[in-house]
């Protein structure tokens, strides 16, 4: 087994060092670090439950080796919600009933947040495309789409944390 190396990263804005061997994934390291909101669904990049943002871009942390993210900024669902006021996406997911078993929710919100930074007027096709790497088995996606549209409206009207 290869040696562990300390990889400096920022997790949700706070500097940390992740201890990792060469073949360890960011998913495993983040969970060992206590970021349990990053979920393990398939470890093959098929389901998106483990999605996090690296420098603002949503990626599957199960396909990302920790050694490759040295010095980078990692944002998980927790990092989107670090103030007293819930992020408009999180509030919308709660209000719209977009959460059922909740296991896919962290990855989906992380992916949706990236899309909403691109456009605050997403079409349904935009939303479908943004979520195409995230599987949900409970909701039929309908209320997830509604929640994302609601969050876009709130953000367009200047709501949210910033």
């Amino acid at each position: 087994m290869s040696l562990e190396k300390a990889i400096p990263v920022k997790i949700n804005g706070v500097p940390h060092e992740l201890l990792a061997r060469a073949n360890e994934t960011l998913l495993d390291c983040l969970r060992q670090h206590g970021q349990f909101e990053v979920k393990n669904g398939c470890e093959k990049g098929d389901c998106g439950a483990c999605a996090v943002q690296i420098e603002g871009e949503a990626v599957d942390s199960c396909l990302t080796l920790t050694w490759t993210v040295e010095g980078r900024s990692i944002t998980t669902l927790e990092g989107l919600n670090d103030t007293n006021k819930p992020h408009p996406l999180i509030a919308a997911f709660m209000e719209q009933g977009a959460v059922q078993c909740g296991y896919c929710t962290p990855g989906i919100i992380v992916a949706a947040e990236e899309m909403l930074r691109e456009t605050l007027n997403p079409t349904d096709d935009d939303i479908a495309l943004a979520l195409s790497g995230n599987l949900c088995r409970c909701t039929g996606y309908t209320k997830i789409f509604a929640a994302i549209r609601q969050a876009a409206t709130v953000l367009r009207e200047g709501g949210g944390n910033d």
Partner: protein
Amino acid sequence: MTDQTPHRQTEANVVLRQIGKPLERSDAEGKATGRTRYAGDYTMPSMLHGRVLRSELASARLKHLDASAARNLPGVLCVLTADELPDRLAATDIPGQTGQKRASTDRQILVREFIRHHGEPLALIAAETPAIAEKAHDLIEYEIEPLPGVYDIDSALGPDAPIVTEPDNIVGQHKIRKGNVDKGFAEADHIIENTFKTQFIEHAFLEPEVGLAWVDENGVINIRMSTQVIEHFRFIADALGVPHNKVRILGAMVGGGFGGKEDITVELYLALLAQATRRPVRLAYTREDSFLGHGKRHPFVISHKTGVTKQGKITALEVNIRADSGAYVFLSPYVLLYSAVAAPGPYRIDNVKIDSAAIATNNMYTSAFRGFGAAQACVAYEAQMDEIAKAIGIDRFELRRRNFMRTGDKTATGQTVESAIWSDECMTRALEALGEETKAEEPVKIGRGVATYQQSYGRITWLHDTAEAWVGIEIDGTVIVRSGVTDIGGGQVSALSQIAAESLGVGLEDVIIYHSDSAVTPLAGTTTATRALYMTGNAVHKASSILRGRMIDFAANELDVQPDEVDLANGQAFVVDDPSNFISLTDLAARGASEGLQRSELAMFRAPFTDPIDKETGQGPVFPDFTYGCHAVEVSVDTETGEVTVLKSVGAHDIGQAINPQAVEGQIEGGALMGQGYALSEELIYQEGKLVSPSFSEYLIPTSMDMPEIKTIILESRSGLGPFGAKGIGEPSFTPVAPAIANAVADAIGTRVFELPITPEKVVKVLSQSQTNGDLEQKLNKTPLLED
């Protein structure tokens, strides 16, 4: 425990204050912020990591297994094989609550000699890290000798078939006999016969099976895990040979179930490893483990022979149902019973003959999956209705109307349905909601289809189902509910909050629920069979109603009025005719506490209990009650590529009373997409029993790109047996979807694919066949003209 009818019959409130409102679910915030801890998110100091070694063949003999290299690897604490286990079996029956003798369907825990299905466990490993466990897994040496296996149900019934289950590979058979089918067919003007086939499918919950076990200072094996059924603790204790009170199962919010976490999964392996090492052990299935490690949906072959008059009245129905139960029995006998009872659909038919059988093979074992045999039955009976309509030239919706059961009618087993039967209204509403037909140009064709259904909620009544719940009011007036219910994502826990809040006149935020702990929360039974709201909801309603009566009596005394003048709402007990005369629940609870008022209640709800139905005729009550409804869809079919796109999908269901309409919509929308996957894309491929599609890149569940416009219509007859007249919706929302899509595709292309899933290849194939037949017919028709 008090076992009495509620003290006061005054229903909570004339106007419901919590029930029927689309309230934000009590579990929504924890899940949407990522703070909810799932079973896989718990760790303990000195925790070990488990791993399962699985067979790569489906039918084989284990000649020898050598774990010495694995055991010698530093960091490996134990490797268990069949040699280390006592000679015990594991139950695969449904968990009994009543001391009934379980069916003799047990399976080996680890392979001792014969391997019966691909993925059957050979050894268990516990090591200091997941990486060491993985290495140990690869170091176990074993030799297996392939044996002849049987991989389809026809071969399994052949004269020289290898026997998977003694004596003849038939693991469950049911009969239903009503009236006289010979007479019925004689009265018919047309007889229509068709055979329909369905495929193996996978639950594909997002959270793979996972758990953490430890042995405590009392010798109790504690298992925190993702499961629909904490009451498997008894089966685990039996398999280990310890008393039932020495095994405790604690749940957590479950990352999806759909029936796939209804049987024993990781808990037995966890218990064995924790017992062997005396250290905490975590076992997390990989996605591949999950594909290989739990039972699948049964593939069915269903033949219908229907006699019908010119006017469209069905006079006789004969159905033959066969299903692949795989290598172990599990819940197959029950699934086949459901399919037999469901086989006539929501129709009144006087002469019925139904035979169903589950047949053992060396394919993966099959067991519970949302719809539980009744869904497969619906795929057949609703396709058959459209085929009948086409054959006799009658409108397919009108054909259904002429045969629907109506409120007060009996099922084919002679059970009078006590609740409303609103199939007709549901179908009318669903069709209306499809709106104007979408326009398309060649080669794309548009089609529409519906499916109606009859789906039970609650367990089979001779299983004598019960649920307990405890409700208490704290001294500050806040409410605590304890229920053994597991929440698999449908909002099972949140619904209980709403019910307790309604009865006790508080807000949802004033209720906290402790759930799914077999040692601490009153046992509530399983979250399966669309029974959670019906059973645990009634238990909570009963306990909180008794408590409500007691609080009102006490308040009446404090307010110096009669109890029937008092209501509870908004955290107060008040006089209905003079709301200014009130006492807050906080003060009431505190005063009650100092007077020794009992502020808690443990109640049991019992479903109707019956004896088993007659074996030869299948006559008698089978379920507490049924849900009725309709799913309607519009599809487009590209007749060149065979590609089917679902454009509109509408579910209209009479669910009695929506406790939380938003959660009900969620069930219907989720059922719509799961049913779409069943109809169009999902199929587990087994070759010689070996699963060749064990990942989400090969096994295709619907994604955001496949989502049609989904509409939900909730009808409320308030006639159900659940709390406030609720019926169930978990399974019913799924059941009619696939047949509705199949009917829409047939409507679009004028011919039918009789076997799910309806892939582009199959569509193109039936189109080319019907083209050939059409050409032939044209030629034959023209021939006489040419001769003229």
